[in-house]
Structure formats: C-alpha cells, structure tokens
C-alpha cells in the first residue's frame, strides 16, 4: 500500500475457487518495481493460482488483477511480462538459439541473442536441440525465454527446481541484477535458502491467504522462534508435546526442536532426560520461522 505508484502488478481483494473449492480468499498483493518478492507456503496454499491469475492464465471470481493498470491478458500488459513457468516444456527439435530468437521476436526491444544466452549461461548450448537438454539446462532456457524481452515484470515459478547449486547461484545473481535495473520480480519457491538469499520481501501464504508479508529478517523476528538441538533419548513424539514446541525432528543422533519459548522447552527437556548432552539454542532460520508462522495460523484458524 505504501508504494502504490511503484507497483508493477497488483491483486486486489481477489477470490478464486477451482473445482468448487476456494483456493484464494480476498487476497491483496502488489509486486513492486525494483524488488524481488518471494511467495512461500505449503502445497495447496494458493501460490500457483496467484501466479496464474497474475499472468492472465486464470480469471478471478472476485476482485481485480492488474499489470501496469491493465488486465493481464491484454497484449500491452503481456509485452512487459516475462514468465518462467513450472510446467512449461520446450519443443524437442528446436535448438536453444532458435527458441530464444523466436521468443525475442515477440518483444519490441529485446536483448541481443548473445546477451540473453550469456545471462542464462547458455552460450555453450546455443546449438543444442532442446530435446537433448538436462532438466536443469531446460530450466535455464526457460529463464532465457523469460528475460529476453527486458520485461518490467518477471514472474519465476520455482526457477531453480532441478538446477544444480552453481547454476542456481548464477541465476540468483542475474535476478538480483534485473531487480537492480528496475524490474519487479516475483518468485515462488520451496527453497527457503533461495528466498532468504534472493528476496527483498517474503510473502507467506497459507490456505489462500497471506499470513506474513515482510523482509526475510523481519519475518524471522516476527516468528520469534528458536531452535533447540541436543543429544537425547527422548522420542520425537514426546518431545513434540513439550511446552512451546512446534516441530520435533530427529536424525537418530540429534533431536531438533523448533519452539516459541526456548526457556520453557529447555527446562522441561532437562527434567525429562538426565542423560541429555550437547545442548544448543539458536535463533530460528527462515524455514523455522515459517513453520512457526504457519502453525500459529493454524491455531488461529482452529
């Protein structure tokens, strides 16, 4: 709301049902210029539906979706949009360079082919038919197709899924550059490290609503949680019932608890297991913070 003038895209009071089931409930979200926004949430939270509405593949039941003040399926809106879809394929028999050239031709002021290929790290693959690419390489081609037209709004649906870490890092840096150049970027991801590294802003969705919308740092603080790690014989089922504990996991050797009240949890943990050793308490990572947020949201909903 604070930066309405800078919003490249916005959803306002959007509701959407699919197959009779409500997926989004009065969702409002704006994607701002010069900012990387990460959309997070469990499966079924409504992330893909939000993306589909934003790029005009679906129409809202109620509310409004606008790209640069236009309906997303208008040609003038599409001309400023670059999309990397999760489920999109590539024609096997066309080469990487042919696909990028064809896609570039859809835009009025595209990047030169060489520049796009370099951005996506595809120089060596330019003449390979798309059918011979690995999953990660195909994702890089999808990325090239999304950025070749210098879009003002870049929508990346799970961009680094199936990519190796080095490719993912290279892509992150070009996404950061795009935002620095003034693009509005929306990514959806399951990879919290990705959101933490890349995003200026994290939007957490659950059950069709936004449960948090802030910087990664603020989200971690907002969740206010801590992580307790130790060696203990206590089974996870029992640990999960301790005061403040949201999540209990064990890798066999180490018990790991996400908690809203580290002091209370540790006190009871020590009472329960005299042989407990190697106790560590530290601030929750973004992942733990989100577990905390989502479970808090569940308790409110229940």
């Amino acid at each position: 709301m604070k930066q309405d003038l800078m919003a490249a895209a916005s959803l306002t009071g959007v509701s959407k049902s699919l197959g009779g089931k409500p997926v989004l409930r009065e969702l409002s979200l704006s994607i701002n210029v010069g900012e990387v926004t990460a959309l997070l949430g469990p499966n079924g939270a409504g992330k893909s539906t939000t993306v589909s509405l934003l790029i005009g593949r679906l129409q809202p039941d109620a509310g409004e979706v606008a790209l640069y003040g236009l309906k997303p399926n208008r040609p003038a809106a599409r001309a400023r949009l670059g999309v990397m879809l999760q489920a999109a394929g590539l024609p096997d028999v066309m080469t990487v360079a042919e696909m990028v050239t064809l896609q570039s031709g859809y835009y009025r002021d595209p990047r030169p082919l060489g520049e796009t290929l370099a951005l996506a790290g595809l120089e060596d693959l330019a003449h390979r038919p798309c059918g011979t690419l690995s999953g990660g390489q195909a994702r890089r081609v999808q990325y090239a197709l999304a950025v070749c037209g210098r879009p003002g709004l870049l929508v990346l649906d799970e961009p680094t899924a199936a990519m190796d870490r080095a490719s993912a890092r290279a892509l992150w840096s070009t996404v950061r550059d795009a935002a620095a150049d003034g693009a509005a970027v929306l990514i959806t991801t399951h990879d919290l490290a990705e959101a933490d590294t890349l995003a200026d802003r994290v939007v957490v969705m659950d059950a069709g609503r936004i449960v948090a919308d802030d910087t990664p740092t603020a989200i971690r603080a907002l969740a206010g949680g801590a992580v307790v790690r130790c060696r203990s014989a206590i089974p996870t089922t029992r640990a999960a019932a301790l005061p403040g504990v949201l999540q209990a996991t064990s890798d066999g050797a180490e018990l790991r608890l996400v908690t809203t009240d580290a002091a209370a949890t540790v006190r009871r943990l020590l009472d329960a297991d005299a042989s407990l050793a190697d106790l560590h308490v530290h601030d929750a990572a973004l992942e733990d913070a989100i577990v905390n947020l989502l479970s808090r949201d569940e308790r409110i909903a229940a």
Partner: protein
Amino acid sequence: MTDLALPAGIWRRECAAELKRSWRLPQFLVPTVLTPAAFYGLFTLAISKHVSPTQAVATLAGYGVFAAIGPALFGFGAGIAMEREQGLIELKRVSPLPAGAYVAAKLTAAVAATGAALSLIYLLAIIAGAALSPAQWILLVALHLASTVPFAFIGFGLGMRMSGKGAVAAANALFLGSAVLGGLWIPSTMLPSWMQAVGEAVPSYHLGQLALGVVGMPVIGSVWLHGAIVAGMTVVAAIWAWTGWRRSPA
C-alpha cells in the same frame, strides 16, 4: 499508445518456425504426406487394369480432399493436445504473441503438408492420364488446400479439450469416418442410403461434391448449397475451436 504495436514480422516468424519444426518431425510428416498418395495409387490406379482418364479425374477430386484432412486433424488435433500436455502452449499463451499468429502458424504447417501430399496425388493422376483445363486445376488446387481449414478447426477444438492419446484416437476415427462417409474413397452414390444420410453431416462430403463439380463430374444436389453448407460448418467449427481455447487454462 505505441505499446499496442506488435513487432514487425511476428506472424511471419512464427509461421516460419512452425514450418521448420514440422519439417524436423518426420514421424508426423511422412504418414500424412504419403498415406493419401499411397491409397490413391493403390485403390484407384493399381487395382483396375485400365484406368480411364475420367476415372483418374473423378477419384482425384475425392482423394485430394482426403489428403487435406490428415494434416489438419493430426497436426491440429493430436498435435495441439500433445503440445498442451507437454506445456508447449502455456508459454505461448502468456507471451506477447497474438493467438491469431499461433493459429496461423499451425495452419500454415498443415496447409504445407497438404500441399506436399497433393502434389504426389496430382503427379499420379497426371501419369494415369488425368487432363484438366488450367482454370480447373487452379480451382481444384484452391479447393483442396482450403479443405484443410474446416478440419483444422475441428482438430483444434478436439486438441483443446482432449488428452494427447484421446485426441489421436478421435483424429483417427474422424479421419477414416470423414473419408468413408464423405464418399472420398467410394462415391456416395454407391454407399448404403444410411451412410449417405450420415455423410451429409460431415464437411468432407460437401467438399468432395464441390471437387467433383470443379472437375466436371456429376454432383449430387446444388454446388452452391454444398458451398454454403461447408462455409456454415467451418464457422461452427471455428466457434467450437475458439470456445475450447478460451475455456482451457493452458
């Protein structure tokens, strides 16, 4: 606003890319191009010992329509259904590519395949002694190529509604059904009366009758009526295709 102006040549480039892509998919091209010519050669020319030029011309009319149905139904129907399953259409649909350019590119590829199939059939017909006036040839070529259009729309409607496998099965059934019921293989006058009656509901029957008219053979009913019915069926098929496109999210 200049934003609305499309980049110059966007339609032409899309058509060229689609032609290139079809050319590199021989598993699609070879059957649709060779089958009609093979059928024509086998059933019309090879079976009877002495093919009269009249026979060669009369059967050419129907087989030319048949040659247009394959690329249209398989390229559009089965092709689009499979592209949809592979997510190839999704990216096109969210790109600043006009939907019309996408369809025009597909149609260009289908018409090109029809053209290739037709040239083989025409060659065989000429070898068998078929003789037509230049005006007749021009009309016949135009009619045969245009026969792609109604079937392309029917295929498009199928492709947007069915799975890849389902669309292949449906295209096969329609391909053979249109040929038989349309009287493209066996003249409609020789079909049982119920098949003739059903045949009137398929565009291939009316296209086949129009083609007979062009080559100067007897036509069942009025040529103008056949033309009007084909035009009407094409419009209905186009609406069906359009609603399928609008309804499908990808």
